[in-house]
């Protein structure tokens, strides 16, 4: 059952084709977790579920700006893709309300990476 190169390429193409349009990435390395990423991740996943949205919330590694963790990158159709830093529960709720639903950026938390 070893994988062949064809299997690898097939899996690659399949996964790429499934890539969701709307996604949120949460920095979930030690730096992010220490700064409170778990709480943020939980709020985002719960809200996405509660609103029954076509939105993938996923855990990722660290992009490097550890001083601004927890970092959340948001890509929603109809709004620019941005990084939010120093996100807490409250900001996570605002990201869902304002950015995801109303396509408006949340103030005071955007960082350019």
């Amino acid at each position: 059952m070893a994988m062949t190169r064809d299997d690898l390429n097939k899996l690659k193409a399949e996964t790429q084709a499934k890539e969701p349009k709307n996604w949120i990435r949460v920095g979930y390395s030690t730096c992010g977790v220490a700064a409170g990423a778990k709480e943020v991740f939980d709020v985002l996943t719960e809200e996405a579920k509660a609103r029954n949205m076509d939105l993938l919330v996923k855990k990722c590694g660290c992009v490097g700006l550890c001083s601004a963790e927890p970092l959340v990158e948001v890509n929603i159709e109809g709004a620019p893709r941005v990084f939010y830093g120093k996100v807490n529960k409250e900001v996570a709720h605002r990201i869902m309300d304002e950015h995801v639903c109303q396509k408006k950026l949340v103030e005071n938390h955007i960082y350019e990476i």
Partner: protein
Amino acid sequence: MKQILMQDTSGTLKKELRDLYVSFNSHLRDNGLADKAQVVLVSDIGVHNKGMVVKVLPEGFIYINVQSTHIADIVAKTVVNGAKVDALAYERPNKQMRIVLRHCGILDPESIEDYIAHDGYQGLANALAMGPEKVIEEMKKSGLRGRGGAGFPTWLKWNLTRAVKGEAKYIICNGDEGDPGAYMDRSVLEGDPHAVIEGMVIGGFAVGARNGIFYIRAEYPLAVARIQKAIDVCYAKGLLGKDIFGSGFDFDVEIRLGAGAFVCGEETALIASVEGLRGYPRPRPPFPSVKGLWDKPTVINNVETLANVSYILFKGGEAFGKIGIEGSTGTKVFALTGKVKNSGLVEVPMGTTLREIVFDIGGGVFENRAIKAIQTGGPSGGMIPQEFFDTPVGYESLQKLGSIMGSGGMIVMDENDCMVDISKFYLGFCVDESCGKCAPCRIGGVQMLEILKKITQGKGELDDLEKLSEIAEAMQRASLCGLGQTAANPVLSTMKYFGMEYEKHVINKKCPAGKCASLVQYSINKERCTGCGLCARNCPVNAISGDRQTKYTIDMAKCIGCGNCYEVCKFGAVLRQ
């Protein structure tokens, strides 16, 4: 809908910026454009010391030194027409380049599908198709040198092990990462575990090893968990185990935990530790590439080195070799910490200058204080003063300055850091971590540390400086392993570049940075003192007394020189001498 981003790095919305924000909004409203654009305050646009900075999305135009008189122009040209206001425009130089961190923050480290969708395991498939000699040839073309400290060419190390006859060989990934302030390897293990595994399998294939071992410190539980999960799923998918990609090549991987001794990052001590022995280094030769784990030929590579390998075998050695500078190709990840505004991980092509890293990427020094030095290479490295900040980063260039690239710690020091105190800190670290096997390191380190303590306590004598150099030389020459050989580097480099500071401590009994408690005296200037009492409330030993009328004074007999009063006084009334 457009977005007008306004940078407010301090987060305090100073008056000038608030006015601009309000004017932007009212201008949009007055012109019936309120629903065409959103004005957003943001924490960082990545442009510093260029006045008020505005960025308009989706175009991405950045405008600097923006005044309220520019608003009409920006709105008319950019918001309405999507055109650039050339007079204000600024191109933000992109100094970073992501190879090692290519997937960190982008893919889910616990999903092999995500890794594969981002070209994962393509490098391994290429390697297995081209055969071991060609793999080493690619590595030679890439010019990759070890990222764990010594900078040994990776292809050469692999070739040495490959050349040894025999069935059993090993490849070990060194994830011990013990330098204070360094966490590049942790981030890579946590953020992109498959890239390191892929690099290891490629290395194993090139040298003829069938077994790979991850040596990771136990203090990195998340890294260990993610690597273990990645190993398990690789077995399930047939990317580890028997007959990988139908090539007939078998490879197994396991994890060993380190217990957090710095010396266990040294390759021979690491091998002893994996064998279940006490983590003592041993003399080389024989080098591990010939006689390593269980006396078998063993390649030891750093985490970042292996993460580069999977990239090189995917993109080709030649392309990689074009990045960076002569002798130091590719990129380097640094853990930028200390008194820098944006601390974190940065990855830059070799040849980027220290100044670019600290100022353009790191945003400069905290509270805009004066920078004094940059420390690279951790406890084996050295302190680099201002006049060399334009040095391009590379293995040889840093060595010439008396420091080393090391594994990538980069600590920014400002005017409040005392160079004698810092070298005492690093040396103290090596003394704590010395395994005690060889005398130069065990005894020399302690003696040097005693002298440094004396100096910082104001008991230094002139010949102490000479003694420091003498012991340092003995340690460099006679220590068994890299720990002792390099432990004196921070002391030597600070003595070389900041000799004046040592002399001030020894001759004048003063600490210019005000750090060494025995050498500073605090007093309160009664004219400036408002009698608020904040200093007295922050004094841990109740050495400050007074009231609103009489003002406050410090009882020198009780004062321990901690400097709390100096830090908290809002009126500059506490004096430090």
